[in-house]
């Protein structure tokens, strides 16, 4: 499973701002970056509704600071099932929950 954590859209993102600035200095104009974190979770056993809810609670408790961040939990197939380049597209993804604080 994958948990993506992003700063809330309204919240200042100093890291993303620094990357945006660096890209511009390197000649990559017109690109604005916001930077978050991606957690990959190997979950043992079948992914049931309860299990999902538990991962959701884990994300809410530790992985994301819901005062200033949003997170998103989704199920991804095991990594070897997908090509590296187009992992995002080909991997079977299920949007299961989006939660903001």
């Amino acid at each position, binding site marked *: 499973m994958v948990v993506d954590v992003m700063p809330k859209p309204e*919240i200042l993102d100093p890291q993303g701002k620094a990357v945006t600035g660096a890209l511009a200095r390197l000649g990559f104009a017109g690109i604005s970056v916001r930077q978050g974190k991606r957690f990959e979770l190997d979950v043992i056993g079948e992914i049931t509704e309860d299990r999902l809810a538990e991962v959701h609670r884990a994300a809410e408790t530790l992985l994301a600071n819901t005062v200033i961040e949003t997170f998103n939990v989704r199920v991804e197939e095991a990594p070897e099932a997908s090509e590296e380049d187009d992992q995002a597209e080909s991997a079977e993804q299920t949007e299961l929950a989006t939660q903001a604080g």
Partner: protein
Amino acid sequence: MADTVGDAARTPDQAQPWAELGLKDDEYARIKEILGRRPTSSELAMYSVMWSEHCSYKSSKVHLRQFAELPTETPVGKLLAGIGENAGVVDIGQGYAVTFKIESHNHPSYVEPYQGAATGVGGIVRDILAMGARPIGVMDSLRFGPLHEPDTARVLPGVVAGIGGYGNCLGLPNIGGEVAYDHTYLGNPLVNALCVGVLRHEDLHLAKATGAGNQVILYGASTGADGIGGVSVLASESFDDAEGTNAGQAERSTEQVEAYPSTSSGRSSSTSSGRKPASKRPSVQVGDPFLEKLLIECTLEIFAAGLITGIQDLGGAGLSCATSELASAGDGGMHIDLDLVPLRNTTLSPEEILMSESQERMMAIVEPEHVEDFLAICRKWDVLATVIGEVTAGDRLVIDWHGETVVDVPPRTVAHEGPVYQRPYGRPEWQDQVQANGIDQLPRPAGGEELADTLLRLIGSPNLCDKSWVTDQYDRYVRGNSVLAQPDDAGVLRIDEYSGLGVALATDCNSRFALLDPYAGAQLALAEAYRNVASSGAEPLAITDCLNFGSPEDPAIMWQFSEAVRGLADGCRALGTPVTGGNVSFYNQTGSTPILPTPVVGVLGVIDDVTRRTSGGFSAAEHPIYLLGETRDELAGSAWAQVIHDHLGGRPPEVDFAQEKALAEVLIRASRRGLLGSAHDLADGGLAQALVESALRYGFGARIELPSEADPFVWLFSETTGRALVSVKEGADRDLASLCRINGVMLTKLGVVTAQEDASLEVVGQFMLPLTRIREAWQDTIPAVMATH
């Protein structure tokens, strides 16, 4: 569509959510009277935030006047700027001045400990910068719930990491402060941040907008939806549909902090309790210390180039505060074109732009011919700068949005002529019971073994134990000018590399004493900080304070507040140390339980030659140890009563300012003459705590022989004020004795510093404890608790 002045005139009876914004009906009526019409929603937003407790000081103003009535002379000279400016400025001689101030960022630090504390540091640093000074150091005074509580494990590490993260990135040494615990702080921690800056006299800058035609420049970060949760009510589609946002009232009242009366920005979010985030915009601000660093260097270069007429930092109430205060303090009006404000988020409404508390922003008033040079310096530092308006000849603050006027107000009515309340106050009935519930019936330790056990329990208690888990996360030597820092009594910073001139700072407050007697409690905080500064060898000059209390709507709290202010004013008059400014934070309570009254006092001192400063640690074996000052049986409210008996009652120790001044004189003279090997003030935990800290600092032992008539328990644990523990260099005994005689300070020989090898603390006839055992008891407390979370 924005609500314009034209709309307001056309629809005089339109319902407005003034109550949700925290305004009272008579306040709303007064706004209508001032304007001769209903306010636009932008005006309503400005008035509501500027008339909040947090910006207007409406409850505290009538009491704080006592500080303004104090003489503004320090032992070195007149204050160069006092209450009412962003921060007070104190002459320290040789053409140098320092500016310092302490402010609270309590509620934001509860909601989001890291960012709340970080932006607290950022805000106070900008206050100092706005005076034309280079920030040179920070300190912080922290209060948390009991150390073992799970929520303390959330709040404490976050706050400490936030202070460290922001301050360390800025390159400012954190030279001290305090941390203490009490259950009343569990749902309402206190984060009070102090910053000190240095400037040459001629570089002083004040916050006002003068000279019609001068340009208004906003520089630093772009403006986003930071800290505007409570104002979202205005941004919703229409006022009729403003339900569900009644969090505004409750939230507004939770953050009520700002700089003293008329001034400033500060920082402090105006909103959000975090317990029920009901608004559609988040109220948490995120700081960017690297941008703040650029802002500091950029601003100082602009100062040096002489390009600034007036300047103000943006903090609490953002643009509303900066525009109205600059215009109000100046000689004309101001016109702002809100469309020119650089936005991080283009969906912001004009109300939100005016309210936004985005960090790392400043506003400058610049003569037209200097604008190009100003912008060029900003470009050099990669700091965004935009002309957003100009000073006008009129007397109105006019703000346009999309070609229409959304604000047209007399700025003084927003910034300086807000409501003033004579809140009722009265001594609560329970005060007598608290004072009557003394310590006479509490069993006292008897015999050496029990005394040793008491000592070990006290030094390992959260309030007295080693704080290095906290302070090790702060850089205290960056910039290379830190002469003393925690764990010494006061932080001492060298001003330059040539003159030897330095400043010393200490913050203190024993809030348990303040509960027993708020008048005396505030004076005890002042006396302790004063004594701490003097212990370092510096001469105390002036103070700043951060007055943290519960709800001013409760007459008992208001009484505590008024007593604390009166006590502080009387104390400052007696010591000759003016109040340069500070901050009031009300509504510090969880439900109906207020915090212990916590009037934190920061004292600034000057030392002519930092090589003569005195450290708190025993520095050589064979140095004789003396106690300065008289010891009485004063244990009510003491660390002993708390740790051993969980008891809080009785009357706090007496304060004698004449004695404090005499003691300070001895400590300062002795330091200048190089008589002392160490000096440590006596406060929480009494002589026992001072002995332990002086010994542990460099690992020396001590052999102590208490006077034969002394009650060992009282001598070791009483918290009588006006005392210090010193060790004296070889052959200096007689000089110290004559200094004490001249100044009328009692001098008692206690014993001698002993070797580092197999060091121990011996109280002859009572106990002998190996230093290793003492160190273990003292330093394990916080790490042990933090490790389990």
